């Protein structure tokens, strides 16, 4: 047999859940440690920088609100990519990745919603308004929960994965709506000031802690994601073993 190229071998290595588990086992302590360090730095920075002259102390909410909001969208993007992986490449780990990401995404969205509301009360005088940005984020939250419910309602994971992949892809239209809602409709919410074509317009003083926190949140996401994927792999392994046991038990007895 000819030796497959290194890239292909790497890919198929990852395709093998057992290898993936081994990889997770070595990687996750490092990732978790790095996440903790970054959070320490980020929290330190976010409590030592001065308050904004307009928004006062509440600007500190930004350092959790904005990363959580970004992550909520990124997580869905990860799920959409995994859904493509499921439908196009039939990659077994893609199913696992999409399913494991949903609860994490739901939690980040929840954090964005809670912190946003807590910021809105002092700034806008109300916990909630039904403007395009806020509403589309809430719809994202509902979609995460719907996907979780769909996954729980189906007892066969492979089929559940395929079907939710279709739904994930259809629901992806919401992400650009969230991102650009502030520009397409006039809303109460702040327009983008960091991730924009012409570079960030936010002052460096706020940018530094924000970016550190954003990286920390991203690492947190990846740590949790690979660990949740590991759990999901174990869950499937258990299901396979159980079916195996059920099939071999009693038949001969």
């Amino acid at each position: 047999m000819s030796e497959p190229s290194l890239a292909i071998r790497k890919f198929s290595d990852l395709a093998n859940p057992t290898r993936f588990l081994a990889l997770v086992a070595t990687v996750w302590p490092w990732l978790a440690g790095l996440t903790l360090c970054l959070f320490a730095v980020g929290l330190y920075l976010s409590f030592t920088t001065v308050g904004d002259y307009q928004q006062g102390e509440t600007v500190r909410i930004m350092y959790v609100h904005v990363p959580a909001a970004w992550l909520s969208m990124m997580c869905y993007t990860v799920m959409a990519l995994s859904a493509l992986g499921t439908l196009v490449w039939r990659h077994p780990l893609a199913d696992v990745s999409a399913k494991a990401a949903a609860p994490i995404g739901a939690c980040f969205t929840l954090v964005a919603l809670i912190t946003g509301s807590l910021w809105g009360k002092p700034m806008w005088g109300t916990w909630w308004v039904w403007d395009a940005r806020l509403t589309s984020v809430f719809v994202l939250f509902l979609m995460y929960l719907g996907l979780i419910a769909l996954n729980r309602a189906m007892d066969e994971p492979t089929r559940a994965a395929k079907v939710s992949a279709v739904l994930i892809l259809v629901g992806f239209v919401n992400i650009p709506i969230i991102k650009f809602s502030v520009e397409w409709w006039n809303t109460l919410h702040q327009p983008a000031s960091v991730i924009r074509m012409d570079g960030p317009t936010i002052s460096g003083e706020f940018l530094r802690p924000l970016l550190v926190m954003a990286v920390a949140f991203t690492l947190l996401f990846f740590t949790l994601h690979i660990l949740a994927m590991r759990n999901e792999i174990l869950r499937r392994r258990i299901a396979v073993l159980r079916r195996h046991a059920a099939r071999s038990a009693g038949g001969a007895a």
Partner: protein
Amino acid sequence: MRLVAEGLSAKRGEDLIFQDISFEIPRGEALVVKGPNGSGKSTLLRVLAGLLPAETGTAKLVAAAQPVERLGEACHYLGHRNAMKRELTVDENLVFWKAFFGDFSGGAGISVDEAVESVGLRGIVHLPFGYLSAGQQRRMAMAKLLVAWRPVWILDEPTAALDASAEAMFAGLVTTHLARGGIAIAATHQPLGLEGVRELRMTGFAGVGEAVW
């Protein structure tokens, strides 16, 4: 203790399925109900269990260990469906039924583990019921009969979906039950492997109750 049925008849929709059926089963004996498809075997068993009202006639348990108002209270009924939840494990299912049924006076059910052992499926009680094959599910439904004591067993095609070895196991269960002083009534197409049992042959189609219309 005797099970006495007198002049039973029952309807499905407007059709009289059977008419004027009487029998008596003393303790320790079994009755096998036979007949072609659609002759009313299942209907008779459901009438005995109290799940369908009899058109005429009565069925009761005389001289039982505890006075019974409805015959059904003293019966286990094993129908076509297994009455187990696919989502719960076998263990959870059986523990629930054991607690819910309680024992009828005059006997005691065996523990869940022993019951599972008796039907030959030790080692898979921790699996969700839905994972089992059709034959295994049927066996677990039989284990349900063992965890709580009921003097009368009403069994509708108990050996459907079972292979030969399981049929022998089932015959053993019924024999033990009879030896403990129980009564069993079974409807079936296949031979059950029980010896010296009474037989009731249903002919079916007692006639349309068209007198009403």
